[in-house]
C-alpha cells in the first residue's frame, strides 16, 4: 500500500503527539487505521426500477435493475417474467460486477502490434473504425467477392446478432456461422426422429421421474434459472407430489448431488445404457403401445428388423451391464421405475454451452423417451412454437448479394448438414484459402478461440484474415487476436428485444430498455455498428432502421400484428390467457402497437403461455408424419465404436458460474467454482483414489495432463466423485483475455483436444480423448505448450 507523504507526516506527528498526550491516543490510532482508503460516496437521486433482460448467458431471464441516481446498485429478477420468475442465477446477480468492471473497453481499439495481447492495441475513434471497416467492405463488394466476409456469432435470439445476420445477408455472404454447440446434438436428434429443426424443450416441471443420463441440467441447461425453477416445482409442488431424480454419470456433479441416487457409469456408455433400459422396457412390455403403434415407424420394421429386433439382438442386459459397469439389477430397476412413472422423462448428456454432446447419446435418449410415449406430452419432450417475430421479412438482395449467397459456406456446412456451424473447418478454410480466401471476419457474441478444439490452428488462421473485427465488453480471447476490438455496451446500458431461449417451450419476447440513462463509456451496440455499416454501404433497403432502439419499436409493431399471446403477468394472468387461448379467444389487453410498447417497457415482456400438446402435424414432420425410431442409426450404434485404450478418459464439464467460457472475469464467480471442493481461482482435475494410487498422484499436487499433442497443468483433486480410469476437468478458466481476474488463471482443457469428430456425425467430439497424468511442479515447462 502506498502512504501519501502528507498522510505519513500526519501519522508521525500523530504518534508523537499521542505519546505526549496519552489520553487521546484512541483517536490518533483511528486516523492511522483509517478504515477505508477510498471515500465511498453513496449514490444520490431518485430510486427507479428498470426492466431489462439478462445477457450473461443465453438463458433469457427478465431482470429488474435498481437504479439510484445514475448508478445501478442491484440487479434482481423481474417477478412477472415467465423465464426468471423474479429469480436470478449467480451470473445474473454478478452482472453488476461486469457493468462496473475495471477492465471494460472504453473506446474502439486498433491493433498495432502482434496478436494475442491487449498491449498491442491503441485507442481509436468510432469514425476511424467505421471508415476503415466500411472501406474494406466496399472494395470487397466492388471486387464482387461478398462471400469473403464471415460472421461468427452466438445464438440469434438477441437483436444485435439478428442485425448482424441481416447485414451479412444483404451484403451477400453465405457465411453466417452460428456458434451454439451446447444444443446442436439435441436438435439433430430431434431432426432425425421428428423431422423438426428445433431444440427439444424437456418439461421438467411436469415430470414425475427424471432419469438424467449425465445431463447437468441444474447447472448448464440453456436456461439455467428456468430449469432450476422447474426443478424446484418438480421436487416439491403444492400438491404433495415429489419428483424423483436419478443421475447416471461417471461423475458426481452438482446436479448428481441434488439427485436421489447417483449411479456411476463408465465414460462414453450413456447411449448403451439408454438402449439397455429401452431393451428391458421392450422385453417386459412396458413401453407405450399406443404411441408406438399409432405414431411411430421403425419399431417393428425397417433396417435390421426394426428397433425391437435391434434391441433384442444387441442390447442384452448382460452386455450393457458388462460394458457400462452398471449392474443388471440396477438397469432393470431403472427401466421399471421409468416405465412405471406417471410421467417419466429421460434427459441426455448435456455438459454445457461449449461442450456439444454426442449425437448417439441424444438419439438413444430421445428414442427411449419416445418408447415411454412422452413425445409432446406434459412432462415430456416439447417443441417450442415459433416466436412471431423470429423470422424477418425478406430484405431483398441486389445482384452482387444474390451471387455471393449462392457460394458454398466457407466452413463446408451445407444447407442439409448435420451441423449449424463448424469453426474447426472454418479454421482450416481460413488457413488454406479453400474454398476461397476470407477477407473480413466479424465475431459477435462468441469467443471461438477459447472454445475451439483446435486452438493453435485457429489462432494461426486468424492471422491469415486481413481484417478481424471482434465485439466485446471486456475483451475476450478472440478479441485479443482481432484487428479491431469494438467496445459494446453492457446489457444494462442497451436496448434489446430478445426471443425465448432454446428449451423454453413457450414463445417469449423480452424487451429491455437501458437501465443506465447514459452509458459509462464510448460504446456502441453491435446492432448499431452494423446498421451504420449498412448505411455506409448502401444496404438500407434491407436494414432501414435508424438504430437498435427504433428497430426494437418496429419489432414490437410486428409482435402486435401477430395477434396472439399476452403481456407477461402473474401466474393468475397466465392461467387465464392459457384458458382463453385454449378456447380460441384472444384478449390482449392492448389495442395498439404503441400501447403494447409502453406496457412491455413496464412489464418486461410478452409471451404465449398456451401449449397445444399432441399437435402432431406440428411436431412430427418426418416424411411419414410419424416418429421415426431410426433403426438404421440404432444398428450403427449397436456395432459400437472402438474405445481408445491407454491413459485416462478425459471428462469435461462446465461449472455454472463460468459456463460458456464467460464468468471467470468476475471475482465473485471465481470463488464459487464447485461448492464441494476447496479449489477456487484454479483448474482442478478430479481423479478417483484408486486411479490416483496407481498413478502415484497425491491430493492437491500439481499434475500434468497430456493428450497426444498438448499438455496442461492442473491441481489434482482425489475424490470418489469420479469413477476410476478417468479425469474430469472443468472448462471455463485458462483464458487469455477477460481482464485482470481471468487472464492466465487456471488452465483450458479444451487445448487438449485435437479437432476430432464423433463417429456417427460430424459433430466435434468432446468425450473420447485419452490423456496421460503425472505429478509435476509449478515450473512445468510443458504447461500450455504443444508437444
Amino acid at each position, binding site marked *: *500500500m502506498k502512504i501519501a507523504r502528507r498522510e505519513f507526516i500526519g501519522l508521525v506527528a500523530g504518534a508523537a503527539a499521542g505519546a505526549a498526550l496519552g489520553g487521546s491516543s*484512541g483517536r490518533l490510532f*483511528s486516523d*492511522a*487505521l483509517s478504515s477505508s482508503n477510498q471515500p465511498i460516496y453513496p449514490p444520490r437521486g431518485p430510486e427507479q426500477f428498470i426492466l431489462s433482460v439478462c445477457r450473461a448467458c443465453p438463458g433469457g431471464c427478465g431482470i429488474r435493475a435498481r437504479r439510484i441516481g445514475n448508478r445501478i446498485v442491484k440487479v434482481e429478477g423481474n417477478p412477472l417474467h415467465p423465464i426468471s420468475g423474479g429469480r436470478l442465477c449467480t451470473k445474473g446477480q454478478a452482472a453488476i460486477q461486469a457493468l462496473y468492471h475495471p477492465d471494460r473497453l472504453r473506446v474502439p481499439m486498433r491493433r498495432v502490434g502482434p496478436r494475442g495481447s491487449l498491449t498491442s492495441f491503441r485507442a481509436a475513434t468510432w469514425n476511424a473504425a467505421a471508415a476503415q471497416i466500411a472501406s474494406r467492405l466496399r472494395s470487397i463488394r466492388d471486387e464482387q467477392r461478398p462471400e469473403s466476409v464471415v460472421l461468427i456469432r452466438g445464438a440469434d435470439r438477441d437483436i444485435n446478432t439478428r442485425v448482424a445476420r441481416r447485414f451479412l445477408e444483404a451484403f451477400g455472404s453465405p457465411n453466417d456461422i452460428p456458434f451454439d454447440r451446447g444444443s446442436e446434438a439435441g436438435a439433430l436428434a430431434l431432426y432425425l426422429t421428428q423431422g423438426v429443426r428445433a431444440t427439444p424443450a424437456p418439461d421438467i416441471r411436469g415430470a414425475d421421474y427424471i432419469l438424467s443420463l449425465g445431463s447437468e441440467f441444474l447447472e448448464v441447461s440453456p436456461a439455467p434459472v428456468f430449469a432450476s425453477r422447474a426443478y424446484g416445482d418438480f421436487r416439491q409442488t403444492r400438491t404433495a407430489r415429489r419428483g424423483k431424480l436419478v443421475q447416471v454419470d461417471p461423475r458426481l456433479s452438482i446436479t448428481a448431488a441434488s439427485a436421489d441416487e447417483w449411479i456411476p457409469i463408465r465414460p462414453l456408455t450413456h447411449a448403451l445404457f439408454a438402449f439397455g433400459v429401452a431393451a428391458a422396457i421392450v422385453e417386459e412390455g412396458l413401453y407405450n403401445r399406443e404411441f408406438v403403434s399409432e405414431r411411430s415407424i421403425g419399431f417393428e420394421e425397417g433396417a435390421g428388423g426394426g428397433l425391437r429386433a435391434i434391441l433384442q439382438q444387441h442390447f442384452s442386459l448382460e452386455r450393457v451391464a458388462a460394458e457400462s459397469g452398471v449392474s443388471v439389477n440396477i438397469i432393470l430397476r431403472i427401466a421399471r421405475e421409468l416405465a412405471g412413472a406417471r410421467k417419466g422423462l429421460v434427459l441426455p448428456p448435456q455438459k454445457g454451452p461449449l461442450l456439444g454432446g454426442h449425437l448417439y447419446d441424444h438419439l438413444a435418449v430421445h428414442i427411449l423417451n419416445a418408447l415411454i410415449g412422452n413425445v409432446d406430452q406434459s412432462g415430456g419432450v416439447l417443441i417450442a412454437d415459433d416466436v412471431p417475430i423470429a423470422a424477418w421479412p425478406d430484405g431483398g438482395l441486389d445482384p452482387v448479394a444474390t451471387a455471393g449467397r449462392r457460394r458454398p459456406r466457407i466452413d463446408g456446412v451445407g444447407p442439409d448438414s448435420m451441423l449449424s456451424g463448424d469453426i474447426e473447418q472454418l479454421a482450416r478454410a481460413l488457413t488454406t484459402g479453400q474454398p476461397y480466401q476470407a477477407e473480413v471476419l466479424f465475431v459477435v457474441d462468441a469467443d471461438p478461440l477459447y472454445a475451439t478444439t483446435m486452438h493453435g490452428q485457429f489462432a494461426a488462421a486468424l492471422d491469415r484474415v486481413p481484417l478481424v473485427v471482434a465485439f466485446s465488453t471486456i475483451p475476450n480471447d478472440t478479441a485479443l487476436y482481432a484487428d479491431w476490438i469494438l467496445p459494446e455496451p453492457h446489457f444494462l446500458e442497451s436496448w434489446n428485444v430478445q426471443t425465448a431461449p432454446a428449451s423454453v417451450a413457450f414463445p417469449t419476447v423480452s424487451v429491455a430498455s437501458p437501465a443506465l440513462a447514459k452509458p459509462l463509456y464510448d460504446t456502441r451496440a453491435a446492432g448499431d455498428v452494423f446498421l451504420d455499416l449498412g448505411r455506409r454501404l448502401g444496404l438500407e433497403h434491407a436494414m432501414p432502421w435508424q438504430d437498435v432502439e427504433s428497430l426494437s419499436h418496429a419489432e414490437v409493431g410486428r409482435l402486435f400484428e401477430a395477434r396472439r399471446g399476452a403481456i407477461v403477468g402473474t401466474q393468475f394472468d397466465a392461467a387465464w390467457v392459457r384458458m382463453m387461448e385454449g378456447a380460441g379467444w384472444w384478449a390482449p389487453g392492448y389495442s395498439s402497437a404503441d400501447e403494447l410498447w409502453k406496457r412491455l417497457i413496464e412489464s418486461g415482456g410478452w409471451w404465449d403461455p398456451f401449449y397445444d400438446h399432441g399437435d402432431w402435424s406440428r411436431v412430427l414432420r418426418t416424411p411419414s408424419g410419424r416418429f421415426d425410431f431410426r433403426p438404421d442409426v440404432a444398428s450403427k450404434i449397436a456395432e459400437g465404436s472402438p474405445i481408445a485404450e491407454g491413459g485416462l478418459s478425459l471428462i469435461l464439464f462446465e461449472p455454472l458460474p463460468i459456463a460458456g467460457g464467460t464468468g471467470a472475469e468476475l471475482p465473485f464467480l471465481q470463488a464459487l467454482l464447485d461448492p464441494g471442493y*476447496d479449489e477456487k481461482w484454479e483448474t482442478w482435475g478430479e481423479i478417483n483414489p484408486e486411479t490416483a494410487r496407481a498413478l502415484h498422484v497425491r491430493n492437491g499436487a500439481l499434475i500434468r495432463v497430456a493428450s497426444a499433442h498438448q499438455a496442461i497443468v492442473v491441481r489434482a483433486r482425489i475424490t470418489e466423485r469420479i469413477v476410476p480410469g478417468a479425469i474430469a476437468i472443468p472448462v471455463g478458466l485458462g483464458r487469455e483475455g477477460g481482464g485482470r481476474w481471468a487472464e492466465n488463471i487456471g488452465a483450458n482443457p479444451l487445448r487438449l483436444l485435437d479437432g476430432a469428430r464423433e463417429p456417427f456425425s460430424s459433430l466435434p467430439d468432446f468425450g473420447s480423448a485419452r490423456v496421460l497424468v503425472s505429478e509435476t511442479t509449478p515450473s512445468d515447462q510443458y504447461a500450455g505448450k504443444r508437444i
Partner: protein
Amino acid sequence: METFDDYVDRRLIAPIETTSRRFYIFAGILLAIGLWGAFAWWTQLRRGLSVTGLNAPVFWGLYITNFVFFIGISHAGTLISAILRLAHAEWRRSITRAAEVITVLVLFFGMACVVLDLGRPDRVFNVIRSGNFTSPLLWDVTSVATYLTASTIYLYLPLIPDIAILRDRIRSRGWLYRPLALGWTGSAKQRRILERAIAIMAVIVIPIAVSVHTVVSWVFAMTVQPMWHSTIFGPYFVVGAIFSGIAAIIIAMAIIRKAYHLEGYLKPIHFTNLGLLLLVMSLLWFYFTFAEFLTTYYGGEPMHMVVFLSKTQGRFSPLFWTMVVTCFVVPFALLANRYTRTKVWGTVLASIFVEIGMWLERFLIVVPSLSSPRLPLTAPSYVPSWVEWSLFAAFLSMFILLYALFTKFFPIVSIWEIQEGREHSVGEVTSRVLSYLPEGEPS
C-alpha cells in the same frame, strides 16, 4: 543506614551501582529486537491483520497463544511467593523478588498480546465504555487488571525497606528512591505495619491469581467448541500456569545467579526445592492432560474426536507429542532423578523444556479446535507470519530487557528479607520446630 551490612550483602547492591559493557550490548540486542517488533506492529497497523497467517476458521493464532502463555508465566511470582510466604518456607527469602517481578512485567505483555490481536486496537477502550459482562473476555480484563494491581502492590511493599537502603546509599538517584521509600526508617512500628500488609496481600493475591487463569481458560471453555468446552479447563489452566511459572523462575534465577555472581544467595538447594515443585506440577499437568484426553476419547463425540485425532495422529501430532515429551517425559526424567535434580543445570534444563512444552500446549489448545469447525469450512492450515513471530520475539526481548532494567534499579534479591532471615529466622524456626514436638525435657 545502620542495619545495612556493607560487607555481607554488597553483592546485592553491586548490579545497581555498576553496569558492565556486556550488559549494554545485551540490552542493545534486546532493544533492536524490540524495535524490529515495533516495525512489525507498524506494518500490522497499516495493513491490518491480513499480515498475519490467520484466516477463517482459524481466527485466533499466535497472539492468543502468547496471551495465554504470558498470563500463565505470570503465575510464577506472586502466587508462588505468596504461598511460600504463608507457608513460612524460609528458603523462599532470596527468590521471592525475582519471582514477583516476572509477574508484574509479564502481565503487561499478556494484555498487550490481546491488543495486538484486535482488529481495531484504537477501540480498545470500548471494553470499558461499553463492557458486556456476559463476555468471559471482560472477566479476563477485570481479573487480570485486579491481579496486576495486587501484584504490583505485593511487589512494592517488600521493596520499601530496600528502596530506603538505596535512598541512603545512592544519593544521585534520590529523585527516584526518595518518593518511593515513603519515608521508611525501619522503626518497629513501620516494620509491624509492613509485615501485616504483606501478609494480607499474600492472602488476597492467591485467590486472584487462581481466578486469573481460571478465567483465561473460560475464554475457551465457555464456548461450545470441540475440546474447548470442558469443565476441567479452569484447574487445568491454573496447573499449567503454575507449571510454566515455576519454570520461568528457575530460568530467571539461573541467569541472575550467573550474571551477578549471586551463587551465595541462589544456591543449588533453591533450585532443587523449586525443581521438586516443578516435578509435582509436571505430574499434575500430566494427570490433567490425561484426564482431558481420556474423557474426550471415551465420549467419542464425532466433532471432538476430529480435534482429538488431529492432535494425536493428524497434522498437529508432531507438536502434540513434542509437547508430551517436553512437558512430561523430559522434566520427569530430570527431576525424579536425585542426581540431576540437585544440579542447577538439571533443573534449568527441565525448565527450558517445560517452557517450550507449555507454549506448545497453549498453541495446541487454540489452533486445532479452530482448524476443525463443526460444519465444513476449509482453509489453508494456519502458519504464523513473520509479523507474528517478530512480535513474539519482540515481546520476549522486551520482557527480558525490562527485567534486566529492573535489576539495575532495584535489588533482585530482597536485602532486608535476607537480613531478617539471618537475624530472626534461625531462632524462630528452631522454636517453631520445637513447638511441633511433644512438650517436656529430653531425657
